């Protein structure tokens, strides 16, 4: 038997929710589609009324968008940006798990790290971006450090709060059965912290996206932020909008697609509740 071999919870009215799913999903997508169509139409009307190069029409933006995607520059630049965010976020995540758990477990650690977390939360991402550009120039460490510094405090705070909600009874159980440190971390702490980790990841990633674009605008010669800056310098508003749209779409897919998928996987042990 495998781990996925779970008996379904004895929820009585299950069949009702399975049958009309395709139609429901379609209906669920309709309002979102209506919003997007309305947005494009409104934009097109505004563009026609203003008749300015600063407000390009929908066809012009779409053409730019297609060009960026087709000539391969989007995939390349996005890959660079995502790599930077990924490395920075991974660094912040590892540090935040260690510090967050320490803060939740030890009063001394909490008092020690608390000022760092509070300071970190209040310092704007723009400042980290500027400082990292000044200190690290065009090295890879620049964007990685900026992303890590701006996302770690929020991650630490959510993980710290999560550790305080971990069931102390389970810690006692792990103690009497002499679970090793590695087992405790992997089988107890991380699964118990999963909801906080996902909440922290959402928050940290959203902060990371914002900072990475700033760093790339100020100090890098590649990446989505750099392309945005180029488009801005050439006063190519359609390109600025196209890059922004593409970037936002990819981030949304990552966040809602990948993170939600992982979250569902991590929470598959939860009993289905039908009320």
């Amino acid at each position: 038997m495998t781990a996925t071999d779970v008996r379904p919870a004895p929820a009585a009215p299950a069949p009702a929710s399975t049958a009309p799913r395709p139609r429901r999903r379609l209906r669920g997508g309709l309002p979102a589609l209506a919003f997007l169509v309305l947005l494009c139409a409104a934009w097109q009307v505004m563009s026609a009324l203003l008749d300015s190069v600063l407000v390009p029409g929908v066809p012009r933006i779409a053409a730019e968008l297609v060009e960026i995607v087709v000539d391969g520059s989007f995939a390349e630049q996005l890959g660079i940006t995502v790599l930077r965010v990924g490395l920075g976020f991974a660094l912040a995540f590892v540090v935040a798990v260690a510090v967050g758990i320490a803060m939740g477990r030890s009063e001394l650690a909490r008092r020690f790290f608390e000022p760092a977390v509070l300071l970190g939360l209040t310092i704007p991402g723009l400042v980290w971006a500027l400082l990292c550009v000044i200190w690290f120039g065009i090295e890879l460490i620049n964007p990685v450090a900026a992303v890590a510094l701006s996302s770690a405090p929020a991650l630490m705070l959510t993980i710290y709060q999560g550790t305080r909600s971990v069931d102390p009874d389970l810690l006692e159980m792990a103690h009497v059965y002499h679970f090793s440190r590695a087992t405790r971390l992997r089988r107890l702490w991380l699964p118990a912290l999963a909801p906080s980790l996902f909440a922290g990841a959402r928050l940290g990633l959203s902060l990371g996206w914002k900072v990475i674009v700033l760093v790339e605008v100020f100090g890098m010669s590649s990446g989505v932020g750099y392309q945005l800056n180029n488009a801005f310098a050439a006063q190519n508003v359609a390109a600025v909008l196209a890059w922004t749209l593409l970037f936002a779409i990819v981030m949304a897919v990552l966040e809602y697609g990948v993170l939600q998928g992982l979250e569902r996987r991590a929470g598959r042990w939860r009993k289905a509740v039908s009320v």
Partner: protein
Amino acid sequence: MSAPAATRVLLDGVGKTFVDARSGARQRVLADFSLAVEPGELVAVVGASGTGKTTLLHIVAGLVQPDAGTVDVGSPRLGVVFQQPRLLDWLPVRQNVTLALEAAGLDPAAADDALAAVGLTDYAGSYPTVLSGGQRQRVAVARAFAVEPDLVLLDEPFSALDELTARKLRLLLQELWMQRQRTGMLVTHNPLEAALLADRVIVLAGRPARIAASYRVEAERPRSPEDPNLFDLHSRIVAAL
């Protein structure tokens, strides 16, 4: 049969005071408390709620440090059944047992035998969240006995279950207990449970707790819950409470 049990529990002059974090009130739960549990003996600790039974067990388990006195347990392998099952809900039932086996340096494959012994073979791959309360507690019992413990500590293991389920689990526990010589402590507020399972029943009373009465249960195992002798002992324990 395996080697005789070697673990002895010696508590000498143990004291424990809890300080309420909010009010600062001090509660002297144990003071100059002494108890010896001989190798191979199962001692039941009976008493009303709040008499320090669980504190006593936690001190033996090393979960609570006493303020005074000495605790000599050695370093036995522990099998503990708490009042709540305390399973890792995100791991399948079998893995809850194998983790304890691995931590004890034993063959993880023994988990299936342990689950079979408590009648949960069919649920080995299920998550604990889909089990009933009684089934979950059976997993906890399986885990405690799977690790081949030298010292078994049972903290009101069946008090959260309905009477019928609790009764079945008591008999199951008796069966597991008879398979191998070991030392144990059972904390309960059910006098009949104490009389059925233990070699000796001590009654705790007062604050700080003292041993108000002590009874030796001579009946041979396996015992039946219907045994009139046990019921007689049960009445005497209730009287002491």
